[in-house]
């Protein structure tokens, strides 16, 4: 059943209840307030639906599994394949392993102003990743791959923090992200050819 319909059901339901008992008392002012409240809720829900479906703003949630105990034997998360890669179509992909106590590789350099896709897996326990003041955030759950695509509007140096309790060294779990302007990214790229 759709929750969306329920919000319209409610006043009708109150009406139906009224029908079954002539005594149910709902003050006219309160009835108006319920419509106002439903309207408010409707505005919030509509905004969320609009940003989700028209602007494609979604949280992560790919339901992709991986054996966290064997990351080193997997193709994608083997040590040699971690880091920043410019793919054939020019898009940038970052592959990270989250493990006590850091995100590996510990320093990455990425371009501003274009979508970056992060693929992250945990080698041990639960972690969370957040680059403050940006949309780059996801939980990293052992047994599952987290995928986030986001754009960093401003160049600069950012910490990439673990924001989920993962053990006694949790406070020290952070890596460094350097976001460079598109121009210097492209200049750097022609020197190192696709890396």
């Amino acid at each position, binding site marked *: *059943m759709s*929750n*969306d319909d*329920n*919000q319209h059901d*409610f006043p009708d339901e109150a009406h139906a209840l009224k029908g079954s*008992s002539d*005594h*149910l*008392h*709902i003050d006219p002012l*309160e009835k108006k*307030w*319920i419509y106002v*409240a*439903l309207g408010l809720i409707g505005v*919030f*829900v509509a905004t*969320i639906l609009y940003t*989700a479906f028209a602007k494609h*703003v979604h*949280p*992560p*949630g*790919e*339901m*992709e*599994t991986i054996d*966290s*105990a064997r990351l080193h034997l997997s193709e994608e998360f083997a040590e040699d394949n971690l880091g920043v890669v410019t793919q054939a179509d020019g898009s940038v992909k970052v592959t990270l392993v989250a493990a006590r106590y850091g995100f590996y590789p510990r320093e990455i350099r990425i371009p501003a102003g274009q979508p970056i896709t992060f693929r992250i897996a945990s080698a*041990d*326990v*639960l972690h*969370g990743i*957040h680059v403050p*003041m940006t949309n780059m*955030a*996801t*939980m990293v*759950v*052992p*047994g*599952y*791959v*987290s*995928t986030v695509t986001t754009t960093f509007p401003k160049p600069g140096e*950012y*910490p990439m*923090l*673990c*924001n*989920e*309790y*993962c*053990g*006694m*060294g*949790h*406070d020290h779990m*952070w890596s460094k992200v350097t976001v460079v302007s598109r121009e210097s990214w492209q200049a750097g790229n022609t020197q190192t050819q696709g890396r």
Partner: protein
Amino acid sequence: MADKDFRVFVLSHFWLAFGAFGLACVMGFYQVLERSGFIEAIQSPQVYFASVSTHGVLMGFVLTTFFIMGFGYLVATTSLKMPIWNPKLAWAGFGIAVFGTVMAAIQLLLGKASVLYTFYPPVQASVFFYLGATLLVVGSWFWAAIMVVMFVQWKKAHPGETVPLPMFANTANAMLWLWTSAGVAMEVVFQLVPWTLGWIDTVDVGLARTLFSWTLHPIVYFWLIPAYIALYCLVPQAAGGKLFSHDLARIAFILLLVFGLPIGFHHLYMDPEQGKGFKMIHGIGTFLVALPTLMTGFTVIASLEKAGRDAGGQGLFGWIGTLRWSNPMVLSAILAFLMLIAGGFGGIVNASYAMNAMVHNTAWVPGHFHLIFGGTTVIMYFAVAYAVWPRLTGKALISGSLPLVQLWSWFIGMIILSTPWHILGLLGQPRRISSVVYNSLLTLAWDPYELAMIIGGAVLLGSAMLFLHILAKSQKRGEPVTEQAAEIHYAESEHPVVRMPALLNGFGFWNLVILALMLANFGYPILQFFLIKTYGSTGWGY
């Protein structure tokens, strides 16, 4: 149970709840201090995370559960005017809950359960912690069963009559708790305990998180409903007025029960193991459950306004000045609403399907729930304690003004604590850290806010100690009061309460609706872990 035994029984619950609360407040103050990093000598992640774990369990499980049980027994006996059904069973439930609490507390204080209030597999705690927490919940199920039995017995003895509103809401909460606790119970019984004992090698962390999310949202309504019972049934009376809308109050409690349950995925928005579609459905449900709270705000404020106008208040806002600000129950309600408005605004951000990414697991989140639980809910627990203390102890409160000082200081301390906490979250500070060591300029901006939080924490600790002092001193030295003078009076309805339709006088149908909604919203998301190949995790230390 004779009245004297009954009073001892309820007081035992309250003292356990408030004792745990006092200890947790001491820990809370230590935590703001340690976390700031200002005092080198007390820096220790081991102590900090043991303390955070204990603080969370004491506040979220011990204070709440024992307070709700004690208040629930009181509401049942006073509103139905019948004795507790099966007192032996009630004492047994209390005993089991205490035993479990002590068992878990020992592990927590020894640092053998630093897995925080949400358990966090695959980090693994001592099995006695999981068993202790389970026994606390099992003990509370005795309470829930007794509430349901008393509700049914009363209805049988009074065919066609309307169950009094306080007991109707109280029973809704018992039902809610039975539904709510099933999620975490399944996680502990089928995953954590067998895994900790070595019967199974691994747990699926995705499944464990999904089951915990089942519990994690409605548990806040379990905590909140007693506060709402006070707002609907005690506040209008204390304000010298009547309850503005009795009939819609019943609908509000049913909406909280039905829609509070199937929406836990807003705790999993950022998780990879659940899909976007179910997250969105739970997200919309989360907004719908704002409706009963908005209705409650209207009705309770309308009740207050009428009382204020009856006392001579005029004009658009004049009635606010004529309210009984010196009555602890009325003052608490006003302060609770102020914190609810601020906390509700923050909650809208958290609940927002995509915007949540900005604040997820940042300091914003503990700022939010301290405001809305520690603030709105707990201040109403204080008000209830002050209101029922004469009934339970046979003594009047030692002072009329000290409770007001205590309530104001709690409110002010909570604002000083939670405002910078929200700001720190927006500045990107993670929650659940014991120190701030990131080598980044960004983090320098955090220091002044840490200082403000320490001040807030100190004010709150002082307020908590004053609360315990007032209760203890009144019980010991208060002026004796007659039983009649100490009687608990529930608010009358503005409009005569007549026969309610069956749907607003029972829960059979609503339980079926909940079952359908839970199947729709949790059925496949849980089933999927058994349909796809998943990889479990072995246990880790911390």
